[in-house]
């Protein structure tokens, strides 16, 4: 044996969401869906996860690709890789924060396999895409053998590695709502130097009307707390105002207010440091989103 390995498991590669969901039901919560595998396989090697079965989604029809819809929204299949997001013209022009976040994930090998669906369903507290999902107001689409539904990003992330997905549901993709005229988005992060995981990552989306007033703002923060969290207290300071440097800085001071008492405190950074950096990176993300809206 030349390499480390995982505990044994049964392997299934269904061709439809229905079959995948049925397999999940059959194993009663002791099966894991495999997308790109770049979070799951390392966890299995560490025995953080030892599922009885792996349900590989690679052959499931209809889970890949980026589609621009007639109403201006964008649908992204769950199995779409970071690399595909980074190199997509639609994403770069309509929702640049997604490309910015995807381009900052780990390294090229990981971006070739890691997927948007995997990132959201895994809900790593330091994952990049969850923050962007929150800032862009994405709808997370899921399906079981019998039904399908959309879950608002505001209700999707529940806790550490915990989402609103039911045990038999497959995350099939996301819908990025149409961004209004005068909108801009950005994602910035303070990355751990070795892993490139976010110590703090902030995604911001703003809409600015013809008179230069911010009519809508959404801020999603990752890395700082147990899961991606919407920074409503900072958003409130931005809406209804001209986004001058002083307004942005005032909002940024409230950047971590929605995470108070929940800041992660670990070997990578203290809670105090994360709180301080949340303010700094909130200011940077909002400024970059404003610059994007102006462009």
């Amino acid at each position, binding site marked *: 044996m030349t390499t480390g390995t995982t505990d044994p498991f049964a392997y299934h590669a269904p061709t439809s969401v229905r079959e995948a969901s049925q397999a999940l039901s059959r194993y009663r919560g002791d099966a894991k869906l495999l997308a790109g*595998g770049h979070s799951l396989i390392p966890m299995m090697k560490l025995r953080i996860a030892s599922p009885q079965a792996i349900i590989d989604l690679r052959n499931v029809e209809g889970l890949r690709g980026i589609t621009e819809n007639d109403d201006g929204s964008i649908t992204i299949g769950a199995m779409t890789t970071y690399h595909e997001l980074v190199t997509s013209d639609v994403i770069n022009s309509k929702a640049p924060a997604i490309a910015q976040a995807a381009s900052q994930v780990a390294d090229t090998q*990981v971006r070739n396999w890691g997927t948007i669906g995997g990132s959201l369903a895994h809900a790593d507290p330091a994952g990049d895409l969850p923050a962007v999902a929150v800032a862009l107001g994405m709808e997370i689409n899921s399906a079981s053998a019998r039904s399908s539904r959309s879950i608002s990003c505001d209700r999707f992330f529940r806790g550490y590695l915990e989402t609103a997905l039911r045990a038999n549901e497959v995350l099939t993709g996301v819908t990025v709502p149409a961004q209004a005229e005068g909108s801009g988005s950005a994602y910035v992060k303070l990355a751990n130097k070795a892993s490139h995981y976010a110590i703090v990552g902030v995604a911001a989306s703003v809409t600015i009307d013809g008179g230069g007033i911010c009519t809508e703002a959404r801020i999603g923060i990752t890395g700082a707390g147990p899961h991606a969290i919407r920074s409503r207290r900072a958003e409130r300071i931005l809406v209804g105002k001209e986004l001058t440097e002083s307004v942005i800085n005032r909002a940024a001071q409230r950047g971590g207010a929605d995470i108070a008492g929940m800041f992660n405190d670990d070997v990578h950074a203290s809670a105090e440091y994360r709180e301080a950096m949340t303010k700094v990176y909130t200011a940077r993300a909002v400024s970059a989103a404003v610059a994007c809206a102006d462009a």
Partner: protein
Amino acid sequence: MNVEVTITVNGTEHRLQVQPRTLLSTLLRDELDLTGTHVGCDTSSCGACTVLVDGNATKSCTMFAAQADGSSVTTVEGLASNGELHPIQEAFREMHGLQCGFCTPGMMITAVQILERNPSPSEAEIRSGLRGNLCRCTGYHNIVRAVQHAASSAGGA
């Protein structure tokens, strides 16, 4: 229960029965005896195990062999053809892009993908492209020069 995997490696098709938990790196090294693919960290950090799967640089320690069913894989053994070194191998030799050589197969495979996606990368683009490959000897300078050399020999930058 074993799974059947049909995989083309360096142009040769293989059909194997493997345990589902068999990693692609294990299949290559233990089943096919292609030990040019090195396993360093086994935690998808170091990139020594990088191979091309359908043209995409892939850390083969972070993929089950079953996931590669139906795929075409290129390992370092598949870079040279007809006794001629691949331009990236030639460039690593020319620019002394290695010392102990442990990371070299992964470095060269990743470099192949870098140049395939961008024939004239800047130094910064090369360094960022190699971010998933760790070298403990060279300090990276000659590795970057080797990739630049391969790009310019191929008529790029």
